């Protein structure tokens, strides 16, 4: 549940998501659920660029040109790249340990 709450704090932030089919997507997180499915807006890929009219051009995946937003299934996400300022690693580590300790205590 810890990472679910972490991602909830990242709503409306820009992240890069790497999928298991080697696709890299950058966009703003719109919502997250408990399976870590992520809804993205303003999608761009490393190859995409803006043309003169302000429309996004996607070279390798032209399907994205017609998409408003994206719902990514959590099981297909390999990495989520975050900016350093978005997450406090020490705090996260502490929280993860605390949660683990809590779970162990509950098992006993």
């Amino acid at each position, binding site marked *: 549940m810890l990472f679910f709450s972490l991602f909830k704090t990242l709503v409306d932030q820009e992240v890069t998501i790497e*999928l*298991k*089919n*080697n*696709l890299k997507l950058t966009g703003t997180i719109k*919502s997250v*659920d408990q*399976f870590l*499915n992520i*809804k993205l807006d303003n999608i761009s890929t490393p190859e995409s660029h803006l043309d003169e009219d302000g*429309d996004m051009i996607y070279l*390798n*995946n*032209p*399907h*994205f*040109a*017609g*998409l*408003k*937003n*994206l*719902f*990514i*299934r959590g*099981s*297909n996400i390999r990495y989520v790249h975050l900016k350093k300022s978005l997450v406090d690693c020490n705090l996260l580590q502490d929280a993860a340990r605390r949660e683990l300790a809590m779970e162990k205590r509950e098992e006993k």
Partner: protein
Amino acid sequence: MSYNLKQYLNKNVLIVLSEGEILEGKLIGFDKHLNLTLEKFIIKKEEEEGNENETSDNKPVMNIVRGDLIVFLGEVDTEKIYKLNKENETNEKYNNLLNKINDKNYKFYKSTKNMANEREIKTWMKVYQLRQHENKKRALDDKDNNEYNNVKKSKN
């Protein structure tokens, strides 16, 4: 417990599956496993240009997509696609892209399944055959040795 897909209901969605297929259709339902039901859907990889409307009338009206195959889905902005198509009718780069989209064998998305490709299967077949051959040889050698030993023993 269920997925928050209400915003996509009764809208045209584009779905990419784990083997790289691309589906497009109207989403009419989903459940807690992310199984989707689609109306009037098109498999982009298999469909040929020009007869999309003809075939979709003859096809079954509703289709179910299994949830664990789905990589992502997105809402299709039909107006924008129409605009893009109209603007870029004479654009060579865009036409190249369109050709790629209509090409059955061109894959935009890689498979996320850990499936061996044909070449790998052939290689491992060869390895298997070699190994079997070697095993047979070894068995024969052992047999020969045993017979040789038996003969030796009987002589003694």
